[in-house]
């Protein structure tokens, strides 16, 4: 199998053409999966014996929390690629992905808070897990702010990439915060090593939600990258032909 299609994605022109084909199906599949997963989780999955229906927040909380971390990891890789190889697509990806990750982190914090009040008895507690996710949210805010604040685009992209790379240190802290320190937050629901500690009727819709959140974010980020390419390459002649060809 040839990797040339992958290398071509590094050029805005090829990516633009490729994305027009792939963004809609990936995005639609994601939306469909979220509808199926949440409907299954919220209406058909059994409630928890201890927490009752409050437990169903898991179908929003866990996917958004996983995505908040995954999005940041992808930003870290993109930042690294930009700093070392200075690929044109990397800062475009960072620009497109950062707000999505920020929203995911915000949803995780917000839904966790709503879950915490009836179960733990508090909206917020400064334990290691909650605090490190708040730091993650702040990092996203920093990336968005610095990429928009500096007028020199190359400098702005570099500064954002540095935050992306350095912030990756926070990811293992989030992941292992519930192991290294004693926290109010419980250990992870999903792990690669063992099956989740709940019956299949409960984790199946959760798995669907997690996978479709990934697809949804992938579709969304490809679309946002298209927009960013339009903004950055608006003088390029290939783009003009491309856009005229679409009849816009």
């Amino acid at each position, binding site marked *: 199998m040839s990797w040339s299609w992958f290398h071509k994605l590094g050029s805005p022109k090829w990516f633009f053409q490729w994305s027009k084909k792939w963004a809609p199906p990936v995005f639609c599949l994601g939306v469909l999966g979220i509808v199926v997963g949440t409907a299954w989780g919220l209406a058909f999955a*059994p*409630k*928890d*014996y*201890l*927490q*009752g*229906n409050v*437990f169903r927040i*898991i179908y929003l909380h866990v996917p958004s929390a996983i995505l908040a971390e995954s999005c940041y990891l992808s930003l870290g890789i993109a930042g*690294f690629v930009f*700093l*070392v*190889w200075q690929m044109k697509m990397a800062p475009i990806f960072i620009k497109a992905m950062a707000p999505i990750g920020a929203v995911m982190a915000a949803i995780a914090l917000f839904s966790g808070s709503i879950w915490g009040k*009836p*179960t*733990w*008895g*508090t909206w917020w*507690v*400064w*334990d*290691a897990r909650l605090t490190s996710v708040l730091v993650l949210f702040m990092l996203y805010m920093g990336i968005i702010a610095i990429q928009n604040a500096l007028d020199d685009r190359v400098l702005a992209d570099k500064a954002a990439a540095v935050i992306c*790379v*350095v912030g*990756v*240190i926070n990811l293992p*802290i989030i992941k292992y915060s519930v192991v*290294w*320190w*004693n*926290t*109010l937050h*419980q*250990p*992870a*629901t999903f792990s690669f090593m063992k099956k*989740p*500690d*709940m*019956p299949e*009727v*409960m984790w199946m819709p959760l798995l669907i939600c997690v996978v479709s959140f990934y697809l949804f974010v992938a579709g969304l980020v490809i679309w946002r990258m298209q927009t960013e390419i339009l903004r950055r390459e608006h003088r390029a002649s290939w783009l003009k032909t491309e856009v005229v060809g679409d009849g816009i």
Partner: protein
Amino acid sequence: MHPVRRKRLITIAIIVLVLSGAIGLVLYALQQNINLFYTPTQIALGDAPTGVNIRAGGMVVKGSVKRDINTLFVSFNVTDFKHTVHIEYHGILPDLFREGQGIVAQGKLLSNGTFLASQVLAKHDEKYMPPDVANALKQAKDNTPSKPYNDN
């Protein structure tokens, strides 16, 4: 690899490694402050300060919960299966509070070893179960005093 790129790669790798090391050391030094609560063993060993606001956490000992009928006063013991701490609390407990449940209490440790709580939070684990499965398990064992959740 192009020498310029190799140089950039090495620079970034060193920066990230040094920063991770620094943050790791900071977290290690602050370990006691990052821990949300003191365990009963730490309290028994005298690691927890008395008279200042701290948190204590552990499992509520089965059969130790005593409620006052006329007031909101409640007292119970928490354990980490090595040592036990007596906690007294005046207020509303979270829904998940029950015997055998992990809790975290905020308050002051008195010099006589009693913990006077101003807030009690319930922990829960990552094990979820439908009510009928929980009931079946309970009937099978029938030694858990835990009450299944029953609304609607």
